[in-house]
């Protein structure tokens, strides 16, 4: 399946911070066919560093989509049956308007002049896209991690437009620990002199800071078990007498490689803006409580968490499930066994596929 990222353009988008962003571009991809009743559309919501290219092979660079194992013919999100949409988030750097986009007021990149964005802002832009595609009700909104936050926001902000929601390895708001890791990442970027207060688009990015931030991120996405299995204490070949601060262990090599690679595909300011959006997100705010927020939703829910995920531990998924149960809403919940930590929702797809597939089929049957 060869796919191409498309763009939709809008005149403006009102933001939670009070500012109006204008104009706005959103990059998106679609897979499968929209049926005549327009009732088979599913919106996939990407995690922090994802993009619109969720499935298939990119015409642009030949790369496989970030959730290709889950989206495609006969897969969990079966493109033979459903019309699947994925877009890059607001504030991102993969085609959707973000801090690296051109600021029409100055003719240069926004940099730190980009307004603060929130998860509800991201979802508001996605709603514009979905409206633009002529879809009034989504069969499902689904995503892991930050994608799960957006799925929750969709279900609460647009109850009439969402038949079901699938938040995976997610939370309705960040814990102190999650905020803390994000803050270390942000500080790594901002303490790199090349960051230059956010205005580096002409001088070159804060590559060192951004790669350190990504290294920290990768540690939090894995688990003790998965790191032990993948690297153990395996060492790199080296001169026995040398004893410096070069790469000695495989795990160091891996993190440096991942950090370096990230710099080529991700914008440091997007890192700052999007992690802040995640940290500031609290589904309950404005509704008094999580229960108050979820009272609005009319969606069915499938909530999934993973045993070894210590970044988004199962208790956070269970908080959502309990609040839904408090309204006796239709919710299925399963904690899947996995050693992959937070990465599990991207790599441990066997059981997840079965759950999602059947849940969607059932939702489609009920909605028809």
């Amino acid at each position: 399946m060869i796919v191409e990222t498309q763009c939709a353009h809008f005149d403006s988008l009102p933001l939670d911070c009070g500012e109006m962003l204008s104009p706005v571009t959103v990059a998106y991809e679609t897979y499968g066919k929209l049926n005549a009743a327009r009732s088979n559309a599913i919106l996939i919501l990407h995690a922090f560093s994802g993009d619109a290219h969720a499935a298939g092979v990119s015409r642009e660079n030949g790369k496989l989509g970030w959730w290709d194992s889950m989206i495609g013919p006969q897969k969990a999100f079966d493109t033979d049956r459903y019309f699947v949409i994925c877009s890059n988030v607001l504030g991102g750097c993969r085609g959707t308007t973000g801090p690296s986009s051109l600021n029409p007021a100055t003719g240069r990149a926004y940099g730190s002049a980009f307004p603060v964005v929130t998860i509800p802002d991201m979802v508001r832009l996605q709603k514009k896209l979905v409206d633009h595609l002529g879809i009034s009700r989504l069969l499902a909104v689904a995503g892991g991690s930050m994608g799960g936050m957006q799925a929750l926001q969709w279900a609460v902000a647009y109850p009439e437009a969402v038949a079901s929601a699938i938040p995976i390895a997610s939370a309705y708001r960040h814990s102190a620990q999650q905020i803390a890791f994000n803050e270390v990442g942000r500080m790594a970027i901002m303490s790199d002199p090349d960051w230059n207060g956010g205005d580096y688009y002409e001088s070159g990015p804060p590559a060192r800071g951004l790669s350190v931030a990504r290294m920290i991120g990768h540690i939090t996405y894995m688990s003790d078990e998965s790191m032990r299995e993948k690297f153990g204490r395996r060492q790199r070949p080296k001169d026995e007498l040398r004893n410096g601060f070069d790469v000695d262990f495989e795990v160091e090599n891996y993190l440096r490689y991942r950090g370096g690679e990230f710099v080529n595909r991700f914008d440091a300011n997007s890192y700052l803006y999007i992690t802040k959006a995640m940290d500031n997100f609290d589904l309950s705010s404005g509704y008094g409580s999580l229960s108050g927020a979820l009272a609005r939703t009319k969606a069915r829910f499938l909530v999934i968490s993973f045993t070894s995920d210590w970044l988004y531990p199962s208790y956070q998924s269970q908080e959502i499930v309990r609040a839904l149960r408090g309204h006796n809403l239709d919710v299925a919940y399963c904690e899947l066994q996995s050693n992959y930590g937070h990465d599990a929702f991207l790599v441990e797809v066997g059981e997840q596929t079965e759950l999602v597939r059947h849940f969607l089929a059932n939702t489609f049957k009920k909605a028809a």
Partner: protein
Amino acid sequence: MSAAATQEPTFVRQLLGRSDYAIISELVERGSKVLDLGCGDGELLAWLVENKGVTARGVEISPARVQHCIMQGLSVYQGDIDAGLADYPDQCFDFVILSQTLQETHHPLRVLREMLRVGRRIIVAFPNFGHWSMRLSMLLTGRAPKTKLFPYEWYDSPNIHFLTVEDFEQLAVAENLEVERRIFLSADRRVRLLPNLRAQVAVYLLKKKS
């Protein structure tokens, strides 16, 4: 013959080991809201959805079984019964079912009270520890009873509370419950005489006395 009528005897046969399921499926009213505690692979709930059009919810502790339920389209969540009911609003179900699990819960009385809080009526099925085979086994061997009904060694049994029909009757009185139906089973036959001695499984339909 209607589809349901042809299916029901098959269902009973298929679940001979769980003859209580057949009884429960008779007690549950069409189109009602049902919560099944310890719903296993969801066979009872799936049957009730298909044949009685109920709105079904389930709780199950085993992840593999929860997955099996969700794959059948059932809204089941993974959790334990002892802690699991607190989130539900009062009287949000027409029937709350506890099938052969009461003896496995840590706090049976708390579970029963919670069931009565969230459900208008409750259906409780349990193995009768007062069955003659149990009494005989204990009397003759002097050891913890091990029978067809309770095939476990004392140390690996999931059953942590042993109750009899008579015990349950007394509890119903003490808790001010109205027994709407009581059905006693030995294999798949109904027992009417001397249930505390002859019933292997008891199925009760109860509600709070108004």
